[in-house]
């Protein structure tokens, strides 16, 4: 397994074994998450075992078809030799419930980079792959993606302790009500504000600015990579499939030849094998694309943490600005100079000086306001510092995770290419043998 311990022999074995399949490697990544040992994962194993089609009436009473996913949880105990593992607890969830969970997490932990969900609709497809949401291959890949999402949350040092997440895994009925009861909806407006608003921060935090820029650039480059990869896959598919025509023609040609016939015919079979082999090759590559897509979607989560920080920073600046203004007002009141325009001040000028009592009460109100303002600034400052601290902790954790996962993805890609080459060598060596018999 790919663990932090660099001296481990197992690590060398994993990379050295070029026969390992990419799904095995993917499982290695998932197993690593499990081994990272949050309290939750020490307690339970989590699987998204199946997917099923359901039909039912939706909220506007229209019949619709949707897919539900079976979540299995079982205690993470070692099974004795010869013993059967405990039967898991199960419940069904549909995609929209996963979305609700994620929204809840986004709002409740704004300083955490929340793991993304697999894509709702198929994108970056090369033409042979279906873009249909109900296509079994797409559903299967989504099942894997949802399991991945749950494991990412379950292995997160902060998120894994969340009660609502725990209920998502264990309480089928009543979960939706429990989420709504948390009142996270109230914070939604603030979140929308942070995502959509165009405000200017006076002293931006350089680290967050750099992070946001990196995240945007990463988003662009991975999008581009996925697009080009899909086009390469398309073309490669074409090359392989045309060789199938050799199969057909050689077979027909062999029928009219005497000496050449056998050699041609058997060579033709190998051409058919060659043409057919591309289907599995490209299906495996989809796993690689999915790994890239996960990090493409992660960039959006990073971006939203940066934006949230910007909002908090902005609110702090506004509060500080507000306090400064009030202090100035007080100063003017004390010294009698009017530098700051106030309606009360003007009217008292026009209509005569205010009485000492009026002045006293105004002063008291200002003092109160200033005190509140100082409290506000103190709170906002604390909030900001706390946000920065917790966010950077998670950002460092994320960076390490990203570097490790993507490096493994590249390695698994190399392994896929090697497998494809080995198949090619096999087929063409066989074909050469047949041609030799012509």
């Amino acid at each position, binding site marked *: 397994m790919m663990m932090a311990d660099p001296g481990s022999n197992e690590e060398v074995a994993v990379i050295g074994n070029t026969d390992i399949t990419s799904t095995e490697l993917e499982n290695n990544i998932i197993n690593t998450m499990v081994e990272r040992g949050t309290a939750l994962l020490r307690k339970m194993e989590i699987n998204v075992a199946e997917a099923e089609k359901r039909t039912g009436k939706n909220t506007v009473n229209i019949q619709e078809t949707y897919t539900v996913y079976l979540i299995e949880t079982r205690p993470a105990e070692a099974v004795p030799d010869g013993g059967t593992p405990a039967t898991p607890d199960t419940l069904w969830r549909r995609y929209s419930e996963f979305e609700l969970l994620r929204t809840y997490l986004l709002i409740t932990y704004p300083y955490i980079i929340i793991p993304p969900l697999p894509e709702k609709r198929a994108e970056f497809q090369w033409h042979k792959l279906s873009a249909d949401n109900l296509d079994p291959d797409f559903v299967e890949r989504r099942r894997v993606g949802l399991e991945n999402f749950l494991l990412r949350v379950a292995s997160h040092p902060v998120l894994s302790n969340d009660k609502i997440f725990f209920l998502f895994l264990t309480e089928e009925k009543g979960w939706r009500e429990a989420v709504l009861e948390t009142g996270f909806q109230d914070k939604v407006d603030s979140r929308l504000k942070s995502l959509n608003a165009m405000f200017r921060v006076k002293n931006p935090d350089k680290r967050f600015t750099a992070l946001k820029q990196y995240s945007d650039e990463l988003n662009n480059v991975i999008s581009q990579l996925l697009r080009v990869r899909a086009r390469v896959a398309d073309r490669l598919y074409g090359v392989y499939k045309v060789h199938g*025509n050799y199969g057909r023609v050689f077979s*027909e040609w062999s029928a009219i030849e005497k000496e050449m016939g056998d050699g041609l015919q058997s060579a033709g079979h190998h051409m058919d094998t060659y043409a057919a082999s591309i289907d599995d090759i490209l299906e495996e590559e989809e796993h690689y694309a999915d790994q890239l897509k996960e990090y493409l979607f992660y960039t959006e989560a990073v971006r939203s943490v940066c934006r949230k920080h910007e909002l908090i920073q902005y609110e702090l600046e506004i509060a500080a600005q507000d306090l400064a203004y009030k202090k100035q007002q007080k100063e003017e009141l004390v010294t009698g100079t009017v530098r700051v325009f106030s309606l009360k001040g003007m009217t008292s000028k026009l209509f005569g000086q205010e009485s000492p009592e009026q002045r006293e009460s105004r002063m008291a109100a200002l003092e109160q306001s200033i005190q509140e303002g100082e409290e506000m600034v103190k709170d906002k400052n604390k909030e900001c510092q706390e946000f920065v601290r917790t966010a950077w902790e998670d950002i460092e954790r994320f960076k390490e995770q990203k570097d490790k996962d993507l490096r493994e993805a590249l390695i698994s890609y190399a392994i896929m290419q090697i497998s494809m080459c080995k198949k*090619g060598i096999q087929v*063409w060596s066989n074909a*050469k043998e047949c*041609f030799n018999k012509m």
Partner: protein
Amino acid sequence: MPNSPSSMVNQYRLEEDEEPQDANTKDLFITVDNPESHVTAIETFIMYRVGTKTTRSEFDSSEYEVRRRYQDFLWLRSRLEESHPTLIVHPLPEKFVMKGMVERFNDDFIETRKKALHRFVNKISEHPILSFSQHFKLFLTAQDLASHRKQGPGFLSRMGETVRAVANSVRGLRSRPEEFGVMWEYVEDFSNKISSVDKVTQRIIREQKEHLDELKQYGPTYTQWAGLEEELEEPLKGVAGCVERCSKETEEQIHHLSEVLVPALHEYVLCAETLKAVMRRRDNIQAEFEAKNEALASKKVDQEALQEEVDGLADRVEQANNVLKGDWSRWQDSMRTDLKSAFISTAEKNVEYYEQCLAVWESFLLSQKEEPGEQKEEEDAAS
């Protein structure tokens, strides 16, 4: 002719694993190379150098070097076909430029044509009958071919032959001997199949070229990503390097297909047309005989003279048939050898292609095996 056709054919009937030409018996070595542009007031054309080395006694010298243009090759071939109407004379590369090419004589076109012309003369030199043709000797040795070209059957007599041939084909054949019926069927099937294989190969090349175009954008995207990263920079650059090297291999593979398999297939597509022409000529010879034979049966006038003519034509038919039968198996062996060799070469190149790509990706994996942490540990252990 030194020997009868059938005995020559026996000498050249090929066993399974024999070389097409026994190194010991080959006594005529020809090369076509060195294309040079030749400019006159009227036209521009290419002259090729045709170099000959021989030990044959019919040749006055053992070495010759002449310059020939495409028209000269055309002349040679039509002379050979005229002299031996039912021998299978290897085809020449096409006269006209393929559509899609702007320049009439770009380098690729000249190079391809030159290679095909080289193959043409070598096929003739390997032919047991044609290689001893006087026209061939002239072609290889005469410094001024143009003066010789003016001699020989004139334009009008060639026209006459064509008219007769057309007339006879309109009249139709009484009955084709079964073996030639079988041959006809084979030729038509072969023509279809070889054209299909040719088309499939062209399509593969097209698809690979488009694949290559996409690969050329793929590598640079990894490099671009590497520029954003720290820890990931090295593996990303590694992958970019692998993709780029595999692109080069793909380019070479396409080149090999174009240089080896396509010309071989193309030649046999043209051969199929040659075979059809040979079969038609044989049919015409038979038809001519049949026509005169019928006339003999009906007319009473001048039977003796007509009988002589008919006998002559009957001999002609027999000779044409025997010559064709003999040459037919020679051609089939030659076809089998040529195409077998082209297919083997293609398969070998493809194996090589995948082996190269495999090595590239394996060395990347090896580079990822040594992690910075591991390397440091090795250094610490060593110190």
